[in-house]
């Protein structure tokens, strides 16, 4: 009787483990997971540590550009920023990085919705928590909310539009 109970417990444990692994594998393959991973990778890429190699900075700029579609648009009215096109966006991001000695970015409350009518398009909202130290030594902590439009482009989810949302009118 004891042996049977042990077998039963083992079987239940195995089934639970299989379900968890299957769920994890399923989630890994979904568009939502790919978008979340892509956004996290973009944030990691934009980060900067003290004493960064200039060669690395050039590589970062190229990779930053790849995260956006060819005709992407970034709008941040508070900073009079309205950029169109992959190259100007990457250049501006590179300039912002250059202004910093160190920049740490964290993404919070990321929400992704795939367009049910067109599975190649998605929308995301998120909060970016930025901790930076500027070239003049001034340190700051800032939080901004963004709304993103993404598009599946050449098999990769790329950012098509970025708009800063402000809760304070």
């Amino acid at each position, binding site marked *: 009787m004891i042996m049977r109970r042990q077998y039963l417990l083992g079987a239940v444990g195995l089934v639970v483990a299989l379900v968890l692994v299957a769920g994890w594998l399923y989630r890994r393959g979904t568009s939502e997971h790919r978008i979340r991973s892509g956004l996290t990778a973009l944030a990691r890429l934009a980060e900067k540590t003290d004493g960064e190699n200039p060669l690395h900075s050039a590589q970062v700029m190229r990779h930053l550009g790849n995260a956006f579609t060819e005709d992407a648009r970034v709008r941040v009215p508070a900073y009079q920023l309205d950029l169109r096109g992959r190259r100007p966006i990457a250049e501006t991001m590179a300039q912002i990085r250059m202004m910093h000695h160190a920049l740490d970015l964290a993404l*919070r*409350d*990321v*929400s992704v919705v795939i367009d049910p009518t067109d599975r190649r398009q998605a929308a995301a*909202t*998120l*909060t970016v*928590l930025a901790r930076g130290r500027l070239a003049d030594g001034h340190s700051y*902590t800032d*939080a*901004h*909310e*963004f709304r993103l439009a993404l598009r599946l482009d050449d098999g990769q989810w790329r950012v098509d539009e970025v708009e800063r*949302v402000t*809760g*304070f*009118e």
Partner: protein
Amino acid sequence: MDAREAHDSPCRLRKRLVRLIFGRRPAWAMLRSVVLALVAAAVFGRLLLPVRVRGDSMLPTYRSGRFNLVYTRAYAGRRTPRRGDIVAVRLAGPSVMYVKRVIGLPGETVAFDAGRVRIGGQWLDEPYVRTRRRPWQSEPVTLEADQYFLVGDNRDTDQAAHVMGRVRRERLVGRLVFQAKGG
């Protein structure tokens, strides 16, 4: 000490240790722990959100690094924010929030005049503001039915850099539990 006592001592010690940690009935102790963990998760994940204030926009009321709790049911049902309440405003979600004070209610007209607040032409008494070294100035704005005017207590900061203004009610996560004096 005889041989039997020497053998019993570590065994008895282990039993006492197990009893101390898990109690006389380990199964019940486990159940109690699980229930306690679930209740804590429900309370601190939904009802009372722990927050740590960062930045100096709420000085002198809250210093940077101070711990507080946001009561999310403060404005449930018919309860509405009152003037002087210190509230948490969500961004994309509740992980990062602004902490500000309500100074204007729906339908009111709010303006800054030489650093002081006017509500519908009347000066607002703000005992929580210590100094006004910068003469904040703004045009009067009338709040819509679901809007509140929020601002930080620190009026010594640069007005352009201070996050303030009209906020819709749906963005208010709740009221801070440990409200400071004068609030």
